[in-house]
């Protein structure tokens, strides 16, 4: 069992529920200015707490840290068990960081139902942080489902498209469908635990201590896979994404595009709990194939999209393909690359969605057929567009390079052919981004654009600068981030190598126990 470290104050509970408490406190406020400032205050405090979390986090360790454990429903073995390790800690920081930027972004872009917007955004932050800090499967599931509620309203009520209601419903129903299978998978894991220990448990750390027969592992793996693949989204379950991100509001696109919940789930639950199923040849071949199809499919479709937000959606699908193949390379570099790449995409995909938002606020669309030469009017915006875009397509010196390089390294080590196919995705990425940048930003100014096109205002400037700092930090000096995750990634790799049955030094194997 993994070592657990606790901390003097319940920092993770605080991080999880502070935004929710903040959202409730916003309720009675009437003054819009005070409301926005309070929202900014809450998200800054939250960001400050994550800095404390990072400072006190022990790097190069596989331990579950800042652990908090309370009984919740004892007779079903459900507990309120929070902890972070190298796999989840960076996501907590990323979520707080993006929420802070989103509060800044929405300062004067959200004009209707301002209070409700900030409340929904903060509530969304609570559910997402809850997803990352829960290590009880049912608690995780509760946050996973709760997340849909604020998301639904954010897409429907503040969505820019005419079909935002449809998109919101499609997103909720689609991911809910997958989650149902995942819940069954979790229940089966608990039942298996009951067979061995005569008591139920949904606690990740306890479930890790019992072996699961291979046949059951495969069933459970595919159940959980559906839940995660719908949310990720993986090809061919991705069609809710264009609707939700194009019809929805920019803040929701930033969250859905930037925070990779689905692929996180593989690393958190599927790999450690079901190591034999995760390394099964058929499973790996199928998921590798889906990942590679996603890379090429997404990239080729992205090339021809005239709408930047739709382009970003398919580019995201392509990048998620990279994350998936890195994960299923099942070696240290692959897992490490995928994990850092999920964080990287939180800065780059989100950054480009922010820029799409800036363009949308000025032009009323993001369609390249109706714009061109924007750099002449908005040089700063164009500069950051290229910087963040270059990171998105993996230029050396930016964070995207570190992630893609590690993923490809891992994949080549495991299966060189898959690596060779995946590399083409890098080329296509350059093609779709540079072609769009060339047509929209450079060249002569297109006629018919609004007469007044202001360049970035200080608020927008702060957002893209913050993102660029992270992009170059991880790009040039990634070791603090890699060190935070290394211990846990190494533990997952060992677990995958040894399997669930052999990695139990204190427990007799299943067969000898049966013969006693």
């Amino acid at each position, binding site marked *: 069992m993994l070592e657990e470290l606790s901390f003097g104050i319940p920092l993770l509970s605080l991080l999880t529920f502070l935004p929710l408490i903040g959202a409730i406190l916003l309720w009675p406020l009437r003054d819009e200015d005070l409301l926005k400032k309070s929202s900014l205050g809450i998200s800054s405090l939250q960001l400050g707490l994550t800095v404390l979390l990072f400072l006190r986090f022990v790097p190069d360790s596989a331990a579950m840290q800042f652990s908090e454990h309370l009984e919740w429903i004892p007779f079903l073995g459900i507990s309120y068990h929070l902890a972070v390790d190298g796999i989840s800690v960076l996501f907590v920081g990323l979520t707080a960081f993006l929420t802070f930027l989103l509060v800044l972004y929405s300062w004067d872009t959200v004009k209707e139902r301002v209070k409700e917007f900030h409340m929904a955004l903060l509530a969304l932050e609570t559910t997402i942080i809850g997803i990352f800090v829960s290590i009880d499967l049912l608690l995780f599931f509760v946050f996973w489902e709760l997340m849909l509620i604020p998301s639904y309203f954010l897409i429907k009520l503040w969505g820019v498209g005419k079909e935002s209601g449809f998109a919101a419903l499609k997103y909720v129903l689609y991911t809910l469908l997958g989650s149902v299978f995942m819940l069954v998978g979790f229940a089966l894991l608990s039942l298996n635990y009951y067979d061995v220990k005569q008591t139920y448990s949904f606690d990740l750390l306890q479930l890790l201590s019992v072996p699961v027969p291979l046949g059951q592992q495969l069933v459970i793996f595919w159940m959980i896979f559906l839940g995660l693949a719908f949310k990720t989204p993986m090809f061919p379950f991705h069609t809710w994404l264009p609707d939700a991100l194009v019809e929805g509001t920019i803040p929701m696109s930033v969250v859905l595009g930037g925070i990779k919940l689905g692929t996180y789930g593989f690393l958190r639950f599927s790999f450690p709990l079901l190591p034999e199923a995760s390394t099964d040849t058929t499973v790996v071949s199928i998921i590798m194939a889906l990942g590679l199809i996603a890379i090429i499919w997404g990239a080729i479709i*992205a090339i021809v999209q005239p709408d930047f937000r739709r382009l970003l959606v398919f580019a995201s699908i392509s990048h998620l393909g990279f994350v998936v193949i890195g994960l299923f390379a099942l070696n240290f570099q692959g897992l490490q690359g995928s994990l850092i790449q999920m964080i990287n995409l939180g800065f780059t995909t989100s950054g480009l969605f922010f820029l799409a938002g800036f363009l949308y606020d000025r032009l009323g669309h993001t369609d390249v057929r109706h714009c061109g030469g924007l750099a002449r009017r908005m040089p700063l915006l164009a500069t950051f567009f290229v910087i963040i875009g270059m990171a998105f397509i993996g230029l050396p010196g930016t964070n995207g390079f*570190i992630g893609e*390089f590690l993923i490809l390294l891992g994949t080549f*080590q495991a299966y060189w052919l898959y690596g060779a196919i995946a590399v083409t995705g890098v080329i296509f990425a350059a093609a779709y981004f540079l072609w769009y940048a060339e047509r929209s930003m450079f060249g002569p100014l297109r006629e018919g654009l609004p007469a007044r096109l202001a360049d970035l205002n200080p608020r927008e400037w702060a957002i893209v600068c913050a993102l660029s700092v992270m992009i170059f930090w991880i790009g040039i000096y990634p070791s603090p981030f890699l060190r935070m995750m290394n211990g846990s990634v190494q533990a997952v790799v060992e677990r995958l190598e040894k399997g669930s049955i052999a990695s139990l030094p204190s427990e007799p194997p299943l067969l000898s126990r049966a013969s006693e």
Partner: protein
Amino acid sequence: MTVPLMILAGLALVGGFLGFPPEHGWFHGFLHEVATPVGELAHEASLGKVVSLMVLAISIALGGWGVAHYLYAIRPQTADEWSQKAPGLYATILNKYYVDEGYDRWVVEPCKRLGILWDWIDQHIIDEMVLTVGRMTDTGSSGITWVEKHVIYGGLNIIGYGNHLAARSWRKLQSGMVHHYVAVIVIGFVALVHVILLWFVGTSAFGVALR
């Protein structure tokens, strides 16, 4: 155009040395962070090999520069003479072996067409499957709503309406007149006696009287 070229030339001079020496230079250190776990294998190249490769590369570059200088500065007419002697070769080289045209035709345009096709498939086949499932649910729930409304509620309504009709005709029994009620009680009493006698005796007084 000269100033940007000069800047680039200066950067190229610096940039070249970032990767020198290949094993322990700056670029090696930069990649060290991410590539260490697999890059442990030592593959040192000898200094002689590195220097000779550099000398070779620089001589090729200088040779190219020399040829260009001869053709364009010392004897500019040479190029024209050659273009007249071998017009086909000249046109091919002038158009960079038509690499761009070929690339456009065989790679770029097919990719765009493939993108349009796949986008269509994505929207009209993959998403259509999702929408079909949605529509099936929609149709199913409409059907169930119809059954609910017309069969289940309808059935309940028929029972209710039947009761209503029965009540309307039977309420005439309650006329409010005492002699009607007495008559009913008497008839009921006679019938009851009859039944009791039939049950316990096997025959009734009416039967005896009739007989």
